[in-house]
């Protein structure tokens, strides 16, 4: 069969005059997605405060123990259970260890666990849920049944099994988080994808021949950012608490290393006598979580394309 092309004559075209060209031009310099997000985040004071808190806590966690004159495991029985003074701003524990340096050291463990949990959530959870939602049909069915199975097995069982194989410690906590923490996120992302993929702009993208990958990453996920960020901010504190619980039953970090959760747990017994031993690590957890929540809240608004101006 012979293809017949429409013959176009040059005369059919004419130059656009300058006036008309200017009318169609944008009035603002174009911004990338992230530049725009940052511009909007800057305006949200609470979100900025959250960001500052997180940065300060992170810096203290990294450099604090290096600067402090005390080691986190340095015991001094002569100074046991001292109330906060200038040389020990948070006081000392039963062994005469400086609580300030222990809280800063604990931040390393707790924050790293929060970080690992969020990375796992963002990568595995989002991609898994996204693919399941986008592909649909049999693929979705199989992927979601796997999620159901993982969801129904209690975390404790993984942990105990892992303990037998690789022993206790941070590594097994990371792996446990890796196995179980993305499951909730995958479900939420899937349901969001199912909803968004019915919308007209996705249809438009499909009609234009956009690749599946691009549709997922550039069109669907930005629109699902709200729920994703909310789940993420909630999963970080939950990971920190999970670690505290695991350490308490002997599956987490082992003494003298101590995460925030362990510090809180250890000081509960002396709450009536030395309340400051509980107060400082608990305050550290609260402030950090507050920071994450403020930032998460701000990010959700900043990332939502519907609120874009």
């Amino acid at each position, binding site marked *: 069969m012979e293809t017949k092309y429409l013959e176009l004559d040059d005369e059919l075209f004419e130059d656009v005059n300058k006036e008309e060209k200017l009318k169609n031009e944008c009035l603002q310099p174009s911004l990338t997605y992230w530049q725009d997000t940052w511009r909007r985040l800057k305006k949200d004071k609470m979100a900025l405060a959250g960001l500052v808190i997180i940065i300060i806590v992170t810096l203290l966690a990294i450099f604090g123990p290096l600067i402090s004159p005390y080691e986190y495991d340095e015991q001094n029985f002569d100074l046991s259970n001292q109330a906060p003074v200038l040389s020990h701003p948070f006081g000392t524990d*039963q062994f005469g260890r400086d609580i300030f340096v222990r809280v800063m050291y604990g931040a390393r463990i707790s924050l790293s666990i929060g970080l690992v949990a969020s990375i796992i959530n963002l990568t595995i959870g989002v991609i898994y849920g996204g693919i399941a939602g986008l592909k649909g049909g049999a693929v979705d069915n199989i992927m979601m049944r796997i999620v159901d199975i993982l969801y129904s097995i209690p975390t404790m069982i993984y942990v105990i099994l892992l303990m037998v194989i690789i022993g206790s410690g941070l590594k097994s906590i990371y792996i446990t988080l890796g196995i179980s923490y993305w499951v909730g996120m995958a479900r939420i992302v899937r349901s969001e994808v199912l909803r968004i993929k019915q919308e007209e702009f996705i249809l438009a993208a499909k009609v234009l021949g956009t690749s599946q990958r691009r549709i997922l990453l550039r069109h669907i996920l930005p629109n699902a950012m709200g729920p994703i960020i909310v789940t993420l901010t909630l999963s970080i504190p939950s990971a920190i608490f999970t670690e505290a619980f695991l350490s308490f039953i002997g599956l987490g970090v082992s003494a003298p290393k101590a995460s925030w959760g362990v510090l809180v747990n250890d000081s509960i017994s002396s709450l009536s*006598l030395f309340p400051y031993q509980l107060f400082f690590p608990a305050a550290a957890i609260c402030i950090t979580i*507050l920071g994450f929540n403020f930032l998460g809240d701000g990010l959700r608004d900043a990332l939502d394309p519907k609120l874009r101006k």
Partner: protein
Amino acid sequence: MKKKSQILSVLLVIAMLATLAVGCNNKETNTTPTPAPEKQAEENNTVEESIIVANLAAEPRTIDPAINNAADGSTVIFNIFEGLARINLDNDKPEEGIAEKWDISDDGTKYTFHLRENLKWSDGTPLTAEDVKYGIMRVLDPNTASSYAYHAYCIKNGKAYYEGNASAEDVGVNVIDENTLEINLEYPVPYFMDLVAWHLLLPLKADVVENDPDGWSQDPETIISNGPFRVKEWKHNEYILLEKNPYYWDKDSVKIDQVKLVMITDGNTSLTAYKTDKIDYMANIPSIQIPNLVESGDAKVVDQLGTYYYCFNVDKKPFDDARVRKALSLAIDRQALVKTITQGKENPAIGFLPYGLTGVDKSKDFRTEVDPYIDINANIEKAKKLLAEAGYPDGEGFPEVAFKYNTSENHKAVAEAIQAMWKKNLGINISLTNQEWKVFIDTVGQGDYEIARYGYFSDFNDLGSLFDLWVTDGPNNYPHYACTEYDELVFAAREEQDSVKRAELYHQVEDKLMEDMPIMPIYYYTKTYLLKSHVKGMHISPLGWEFFRNAYIEQK
């Protein structure tokens, strides 16, 4: 909209704080007993029953007399069973139990026990000498796998029967008639009556035990006993309810109707329960609270015949070298440890046996009549020298070893302190792992450890009992210490009739043990307990058991 969500996030943080508090105390909800409804139920009764609620602190692994080897199990057993002799509550010496008298042959190897008339089990069926024999034979039966069988080796052919070299008929336990039992011994045993009064050689009801050899001691239906109390209810991991045994021969001196043994593991929860009058007695006071409670006079301290020690697995490198073991022992400051960490008025260990046992000189204490083996403060120089001799100068090349302990705040605190002392004084790193008690005894029993925390109470008021632990292949010899010289000394001392020579031999035994140091004594146990002032007559023995036989509640 934005404001709302900020308020929401603040609320979330508060909610998280709340979960934090709840999450950390999750044990409370599991184990707090609920005596309230019961008390109500009692009030509805026309006759008010008297009850003492005591905290046993842990679910006993078993209350089968042949299998039990833990103090919590022993407490239950002593209150529900009674042997031929029982323990006198005034002086902790053996007195007449279900046997009203006994004759001892001149050479000390034949005991004839005369049982009381009309003895009955707690279900009302008659108890005879056959039942006592059955209980003793069960301990020696190799199929029972009793970890205390070696205590009964002194019975004629007891060891041979346990090892399969003699038949049951050869064992020196003979029923003469329904009320007479004769026990023949291999050799005279100076503490045999203590052994008889102990929680091992007790009568058992053959038919219920044979019916379910493993499970009979778990179910109140099948726990048929013959002591002052019987098990009425057992809610596992919550409480054991004992009631007065109406068939006990001495039931008139049992004044309390019920004893509820609750299992609140967490010391703080237990303390709260005590302060709110939910329990009358507790001994697991959190160590941090002890100094204040002792000072105010609320808590009482009693010395116990028990030693808190660390086991070294001598099968594993580097603990196969006695110099390493001694260096580790020398590097810890026991005085500081008991003063700052345990805080229970304990005495730091200066040898293996605790204070409180008669020595060579009848008027002296076995512990204090010889020079201390261990300094109460650290001797770092000597420790470093020994470690260097063993090939680890300043801890160089010393492998990172794992230390195991059973989950408890006190064990953790002691371990953390010792870990820091070893690191600071010797440059040795150890890692700490904790396990639940039942898992812990299993792994340590299988030798799957390098260093492990352990403690042991003397079984009887006798010098030999703690030294018996370290005889080669002894069932509780977790360090796998094997030394023929030590064994020979222990056997010689065990059979020695003369108490002076016997004590001298035991000093030699201790010399050898402290020279090899398969275990590192740390301190001697004390028991710090809280007891409501209206509870009278309860006895706390220096061997770690609580007796409710003569307890009563004083009316206000």
